[in-house]
C-alpha cells in the first residue's frame, strides 16, 4: 500500500466511509470529520508511519502541517516520512 492509500484508508475509517469515497480533493469538512476526528486521525497516522505530526488543534492554520485537503495531508506526510 502506498502512503496515499494508507492515509486515505485512515481518513475513510474516521469518516465512516469506503476508501473509494475519499478523494485527494476532499476536505475534512466534506468528509464530516470534526476537530476531535481530526486529532484522532493524526494520532492514527503517527502510529502508522512512526512520525510526529506538528499539529496544534488551537491553531491549525499556524501549525507546520497543512490540513486543507486530503492531498495536502498526504503531501505533508510524505515529506515527514522522507525526512525520517
Amino acid at each position: 500500500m502506498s502512503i496515499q492509500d494508507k492515509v486515505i484508508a485512515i481518513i475513510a475509517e474516521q469518516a465512516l466511509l469506503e476508501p473509494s469515497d475519499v478523494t485527494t480533493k476532499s476536505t475534512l469538512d466534506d468528509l464530516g470529520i470534526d476537530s476531535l476526528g481530526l486529532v484522532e486521525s493524526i494520532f492514527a497516522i503517527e502510529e502508522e508511519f512512526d512520525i510526529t505530526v506538528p499539529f496544534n488543534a488551537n491553531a491549525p492554520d499556524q501549525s507546520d502541517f497543512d490540513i486543507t485537503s486530503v492531498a495536502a495531508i498526504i503531501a505533508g506526510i510524505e515529506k515527514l516520512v522522507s525526512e525520517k
Partner: protein
Amino acid sequence: MKRVVITGAGTINALGHSVSETMEAMREGRCGIGKLEMRDVDRLAIQIGGQVRGFEAEGRFNRQQMALYDRFTQFALIAAREAMAQSGLEFSGELAARCGVVLGNSGGGMTTLDDNYRTVYEDGKNRVHPFVVPKLMNNAAASHVSMEFNLKGPSFTVSTACASSNHAMAQAFQMVRYGAAPAMLTGGSESMLCFGGVKAWEGLRVMSKDACRPFSANRNGMVQGEGAGIFVFEEFEHAKARGAEILCEVAGFAMTSDASDIVMPSKRGAARAISGALTDARIDPSEVAYVNAHGTGTAANDKTECAAVADVFGPHADSLMISSTKSMHGHLIGGTGAVELLACIMALRDGIVAPTIGYDEADPECALDVVPNEAREADVQVALSNAFAFGGLNAVLALRRI
C-alpha cells in the same frame, strides 16, 4: 434562605504556598509557569507547567500520613489548614456533627496511579504498596480534611473536570444557604502534573508548548497547573456573632449543561450559567464589575466565553473587566475554580483586579477588557467566577463585597 460568607481562605499553587503569596503574585502579574521537573520529562512533547515548587511534605506530615496522602491530598490539607486558621473556627459537638467538606477534583491520585503503574508494568513487579487504593481515590482529600478538622456532617467529592471546584463550592453554598450546615469547608485540589497526566493532555493537541496567553490572538493552548484552594463558607449571622473576619459574600450560583459535545464548549450553555448565577443572586448585570474567566488559552474556549459574556451583558460587557489568572498559575483542572476564586476575593476586598498576563495581540473575537498584563485598581462590588468543563458542564458563582 440564609446569607453565606467566606471567613477563611487557603491555597498552595504555582504562584505561592499561601493566599498572601498568591495574591501578591497576582497583583504583580507574575508567572508561575515554567519548565517541568519530573522523571522522563524528555519523553514529553509538552514540557511546561505551573508546578508547585519548593514544597516538601516532610515536616508538614508525619511518616504515616505521607504514606497515605497523594500529592493532591497534601495540597488540600495545607490549603485547608490556612483557611481554618484564618476563620478561627473549631469544630466540636453539635457544630461538628452538622458541618462537612465538599471538594472538587478531577483526576484523583494521579501521581499514585502513575508510580504504581510503573511498578507493575515497567518494573514488572507483582506487588504494590498496600495504600494504593486509599491514596488514589478521588474522595481521599475530602476525607482527610474531614478527619483533620473533625467534620462529621455531609462530605463528598465532586468531579466535573475543569468545573469541579465551582460545582463543589456551589454544593457547599447550598448547604449553608438552606440551613443544613452552619459552615462548610469547600474548594478543590488537583495534582495531574505527573508524567501520565501531562502525556494524556498532550494527546488532545490543545496544550501550548510555550505559554498560556488567554484572549490573545496568538494564544496556542492551555498549560496545566496543580495545587489547591480551600475556603470556609459560613452562615452570615454565625460568622457575625463570633466576630469573624468576612472576606466576601457568596451571593448565588448556577449550573448548566451544554448537552452537545464532549470537548467543544457552547456559547449558549455558558451564557445560561452566567445569567442563571445573576438571577439566583438577584444581581442586576450592570452591577458586575469583574468576571474571573475560565480563560483557558485555547482557541475554542476563549472566543466562546467572550461571546457568552457579550450576550449576557449586552453593552455593559464593554465596561466590565474579565481576566484569566490561568495565564499565571496554569489550569488546575479540578482545582482551578478554587484558586481563581482568590482573584475574585482580591477584587472585592482589596479593590485590585488580577491581570491576564502574556497578552500580546488583540483578538477581534475576544474584544473585551481582559485587564492585559497589569493588575488594576477598581471598585468592584460584584464579581463572577466562570468554569466551563469538558463534557459541557458549567458552573458560575456570584460574589459580593461585604
